[in-house]
């Protein structure tokens, strides 16, 4: 499953929301989560990976989940994205 977001935070992605995303992804042990942007894909279980995407305001970010709890994981990640004011769902 996947969902695409637009980064709306003025500073792009920074450590606090990145930490929240990784912590959330780590909660779903049976599910692999990835983040994809600018043609690069990284595992969401790595904060260095997420920061390495260098996301800025206006960037498009796709979150991908694969595995048993993929729906729940994607929903939880979306909650972090929106709740932290990091991104909004790309309509």
């Amino acid at each position, binding site marked *: 499953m996947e969902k695409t977001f637009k980064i709306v935070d003025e500073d*792009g992605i920074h450590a606090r929301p990145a930490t929240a995303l990784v912590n959330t992804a780590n909660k779903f042990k049976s599910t692999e989560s990835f983040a994809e942007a600018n043609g690069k894909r990284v*595992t969401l*279980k790595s904060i260095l990976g997420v920061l390495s995407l*260098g996301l800025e305001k206006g960037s498009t970010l796709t979150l991908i989940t694969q595995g048993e709890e993929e729906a729940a994981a994607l929903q939880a990640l979306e909650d972090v994205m929106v709740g932290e004011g990091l991104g909004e769902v790309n309509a």
Partner: protein
Amino acid sequence: MLNISGIAASAGIAIAKAFRLEHPDYTVTQQTVKNAEAEIAKLDDALAKSQVELERIKENTLKELGAQKAEIFESHLLILNDPELISPVKDMIVNDQVNADYALNETSKQFVSMFENMKSAYLQERAADMKDVTKRILGHLLGLNVQNPAEISEEVIVIAEDLTPSDTAQLNRKYVKGFTTNIGGRTSHSAIMARSLEIPAVVGTKNVLEQVQPGDLVIVDGLEGVIIVNPSDEIVAEYREKQVKYDEQRAEWRKLREEPTVTTDGVHVELAANIGTPNDVAGVLDNGGEGVGLYRTEFLYMGRDKLPSEDVQYNAYKTVLEKMEGKPVVVRTLDIGGDKELPYLDLPKEMNPFLGFRAVRLCLDRTDIFRTQLRALLRASVHGDLRIMFPMIATLVEFRQAKALLEEERENLKNEGTPVAENIQLGIMVEIPSTAVLADQFAKEVDFFSIGTNDLIQYTMAADRMNERVSYLYQPYNPSILRLVDMVIKAAHKEGKWAGMCGEMAGDSVAIPLLLGLGLDEFSMSATSILPARSQISKLSRADMQELAAKALECSTAEEVVALVEAIQV
């Protein structure tokens, strides 16, 4: 005795023995290792020890400094466990038959350079976090005797090249009385932490670590930005006195933080702060500001290569309004041109920039720039108590033109279905003598005045404030200036409007009694002046100050005015 000067990073005086916090040599050398499993076991052991340490630092920070400051260590913990870091290190140990510390250092370097090459300044700074975590693990791998600031158990001044985030977080306030570093500035991490810990600090001394030996007696003067090494007994006594005075004063000011500003005869005035960016709001609230009296929007336009978009501006204004939680925020529209240049606007050089094409003059010509700002402001208006003021207004026609553009954009936004607050107060800066003289006419059309004294003085005295040879003419207490201020305040009150001041003069302890007497309603100053000003005003009576001001208006020189004020200050 030795004096070393640096940057005053955190106010206060501290006197104690020096403690040199030195970081050991983290140099690693490549070695060929046959037993990869043993190397990996060493790495895992170092990671586990680092994990325990970081957990403890995080808990400590949470307790001492709150959740926000603890977040950084949450990120450090994630880096420590990051598969993108640890797997390549382990692979390298196995494939290249190298030692764990070498493999870690090489892998870490790649991430450091990745961060350093990122476009965003924020992400570039994350290189420091990467280095901090790497050092922690290396310290365990190399079996280094890493000094732990948490283990300091007597009163000291910490002397260091620089303090990392984890160093600062571990400083125990009970024992660490102050610190000083070779590098850093007012906004560096260590300086910010010092202010939130309320530990006196002087940073950016360049060489304090080289000049101080363990056990030397050190004075940190965080008020003046000076370090004194092995002072004489007299100097120590002098500083002890200064310290007691400052601590008493600070305690007294602190008590006033949540208090309104009221004179002994019950008159309330508003003390607000001047800010340049949304980041300044924290300081305003921390110093008990009752509002923002001047938000200089120039910074949004400076240090970039093109005009800021409407959205960028909207976000900045919205952030300030939200953080101020309903307290008034006076935003000054763009005051650029003349001496404050924007290269991308390509404006011609002028002979007299202060008398030239700047501020509202430029905005009324480049209405595209002005309209973008007005739209951003109008959109943000629903997030708090927004007030807008135009700078450098010389004639009523200019004000009417600027207001008409604002009203047009308000209509446009309404037609687009964008909400805009109904009750946005609209005022002007009074900084040109023509406007001060005609204040009675302006007062019929504006909602408020904010007197910009820096420019008002230079225009009234015809003295360039950048020219040192005529600096003696910068005379805030000259009766001519006081009469102009008096005219403006009276004109405002006659029409039921309010008058504020946002120049240096508003926070000046000699000017405050006079301004209070003249009836000024709002004083806007740098955030750190607010509590001292509140303390001063709470000891003055408005009625007495009215008498004082009336006398001052009849003086013939600035010196006479100062003498009058000094006579009442006991």
